[in-house]
């Protein structure tokens, strides 16, 4: 059962149904007690509506923006690298390795019978890639491996500190 105050607050807030609204409106007009409580709550409601907000200190916005700028400046280079670039590089290597693997397996002479005698025909890349390009490729692989290792160790370290 709703108390008078509960019903009147619903009426003031406009959260009651149309039927309830009509009933309460009638009660306010006819019932002295309802009228008295309604006037009291209405005045209290008005006071709450006009209460003032607190004001932060003058340099508040500046402080917030300064804190954001400081955090942005501290962001490591690692976080600034677009993840999509890393994904594209990873995809390139995965596809290259997969193609080489499939090509190699497809060219195996399985009819030899003896597994030790199975011939793997790895395609010759000497004609396509120069020595310096190969060195660069290996160097890039090493850097990428170190980057992934760094990421893994950082994650593990973060988990430990949490």
């Amino acid at each position: 059962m709703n108390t008078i105050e509960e019903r009147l607050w619903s009426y003031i807030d406009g959260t009651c149904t149309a039927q309830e609204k009509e009933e309460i409106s009638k009660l306010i007009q006819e019932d002295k007690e309802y009228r008295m409580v309604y006037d009291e709550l209405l005045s209290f409601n008005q006071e709450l509506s006009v209460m003032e907000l607190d004001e932060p200190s003058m340099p508040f916005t500046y402080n917030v923006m300064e804190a954001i700028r400081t955090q942005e400046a501290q962001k490591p280079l690692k976080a600034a690298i677009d993840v999509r670039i890393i994904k594209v590089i990873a995809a390139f290597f995965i596809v290259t390795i997969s193609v080489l693997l499939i090509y190699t397996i497809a060219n195996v002479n399985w009819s030899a019978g003896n597994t030790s005698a199975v011939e793997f025909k790895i395609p010759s890349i000497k004609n396509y890639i120069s020595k310096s390009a190969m060195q660069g490729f290996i160097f890039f692989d090493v850097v990428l491996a170190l980057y992934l290792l760094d990421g893994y160790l950082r994650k593990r370290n973060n988990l430990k500190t949490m």
Partner: protein
Amino acid sequence: MQSKLSDIELIEETLAGNQSAYADLVKRHQRFVFTLAMRFSKSREDAEEIAQDSFIKAYRSLAAFGGQSKFSTWLYTIVYTTAMTFLRKKRLNTSSIDDEATFIQLESQNSAFDNNLAENKSRSYYLNKAIEQLLPDDAMIITLFYKGEQSLEEIGTTLGIEPNTVKVKLFRARQRLKEKLERNLKHEAKELI
């Protein structure tokens, strides 16, 4: 011109790299965010820290704001969680208003403060004092409803509760506030006599 932009437009500009657009958003919402923070912490310094942390968190997660709700509702959710975390960390005393000892303590604090402002007391002053004596959740609901232009549904989203529960909580919070206000005014009348 910048101040006429909507919250969503300012967010888009911020995401495009214009930090001054975010400064405009902060200016627009800082008073209300600070008031909400004050509902949890009675100290201005702590409230500023809560408000500042909330804006920084909002900035960092701005890209995740999908626009399904109003920016203010989303921001107030961040303020609420930041304030709760802050309270837990600081272990502030958030004892019940029904606790007699708390009331006596608050009454004595008020008396000391009141004596300094004897002539200048308005009803709104007592209202603010009564709000300060409420539990943070009660004060937050009242502030969100009256000053945040938030519906019961939006308050429910901010606090993570059902709109019907918000309605009941709002009713109880107003009742407690009314009792507090009347008690403080009676106390003041006695002091003057």
